[in-house]
């Protein structure tokens, strides 16, 4: 049995939210609210709310990156300084804290930012192949809902979306 993906397009958020609420209320057989994907031109707080607890883990990477930055910074700087003993003195010690703190601060941010960005690219699944179901209207004002169903539920789903005022429905084989 092959699986199909369906994209239903809605005019604005209100019908989409209604549809999701309907799915949440298990009006659509075989589709759980956890499996649907909502595509929208902007981010809508209500949709987040309805879709429930979908975790975001970027901040953990950020934390680790920043932590790495600051520790790496310290050891990098002080090992460089400790191996370069002819460096300017000016009456200052070999491993001076004030300047190292400044540089560690910068390195904290540097690594923090970069890990955040890499984490974003990875976690948001930007490069992941997820079918071709897409419509250019999604970047104008329409909201799309993508569900994955078994072949036998295809008709049923279509009807469901049409019931909920979907403007357009596209489908593809998973």
């Amino acid at each position, binding site marked *: 049995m092959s699986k199909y993906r369906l994209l239903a397009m809605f005019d604005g958020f209100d019908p989409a939210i209604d549809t999701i609420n309907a799915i949440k209320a298990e009006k659509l057989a075989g589709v759980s609210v956890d499996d649907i994907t909502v595509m929208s031109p902007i981010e809508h707080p209500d949709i987040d709310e309805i879709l429930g607890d979908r975790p975001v883990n970027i901040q953990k990477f950020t934390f680790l990156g920043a932590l790495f930055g600051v520790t790496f910074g310290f050891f*990098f700087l002080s*090992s460089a300084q400790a*191996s*370069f*003993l*002819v460096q300017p003195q000016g009456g200052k010690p070999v491993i001076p804290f004030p300047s190292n703190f400044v540089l560690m601060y910068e*390195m904290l941010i*540097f*690594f923090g930012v970069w890990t955040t960005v890499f984490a974003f690219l990875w976690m948001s699944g930007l490069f992941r192949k997820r079918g071709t179901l897409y419509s250019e209207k999604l970047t104008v004002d329409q909201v799309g809902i993508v569900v994955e169903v078994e072949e036998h539920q295809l008709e049923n789903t279509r009807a469901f979306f049409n019931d909920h005022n979907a403007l357009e429905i596209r489908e593809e084989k998973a």
Partner: protein
Amino acid sequence: MQFANRTSLNNAAAVSIRRLQAKLVQCGKPFYLLMALAVMALLPLTAMAELPVPSHITPPPGEHEGEHVPQPIEFPHDRHVKDMKINCMYCHTYARRSKVAGIPPTSKCMGCHKVIATDRPRIQKLTEYWEKGESPRWKKVHDVPDYVHFTHEKHIRKFVFDADFPVEDVQQVCGVCHGEVREMTVAEKKKPLNMGFCRRCHEANGGPGDCWKCHK
């Protein structure tokens, strides 16, 4: 100095970077600026990629592909050193007394060659110079930049006289920087003689690390 002695692989990289630099220099200044920008962007990655490796290697690694330098007289080092077993400092007599090793005065050459091998074309050329009262204008093969202060005298003292190294084998010491001169006719530059080369040797052999020891 702990950061360190790179492996020969790294050194090869350094050599190629130097070549690249030289090429860029030929290309012109904008490339230099571009390179600086590029390095600026990539800097922290570089730092992560090449963390220090410890090592104590004597003599320092490093090779250099020297060019053949045409000299007024094709002086056969191999003949003198290998076959005749003449000590380097017999001719390069200032090495133990001065910054420079010195080219032997023409009188020194003539000291032997008034009688030895006078029929050879190279010796005849030498005799010609001698009779004119001139010295040949030799081309410098081993050179360091003008901002470098290098003294032969100190190195010879440390590695030969203070170390009780047999003076007749001094070629081995000289060879650390000058390569196997006894295998060459005209001397060629076989060691990079750049700062990394000097520094690695100074680290491995307890030489001074003060900038002003070697820079002037």
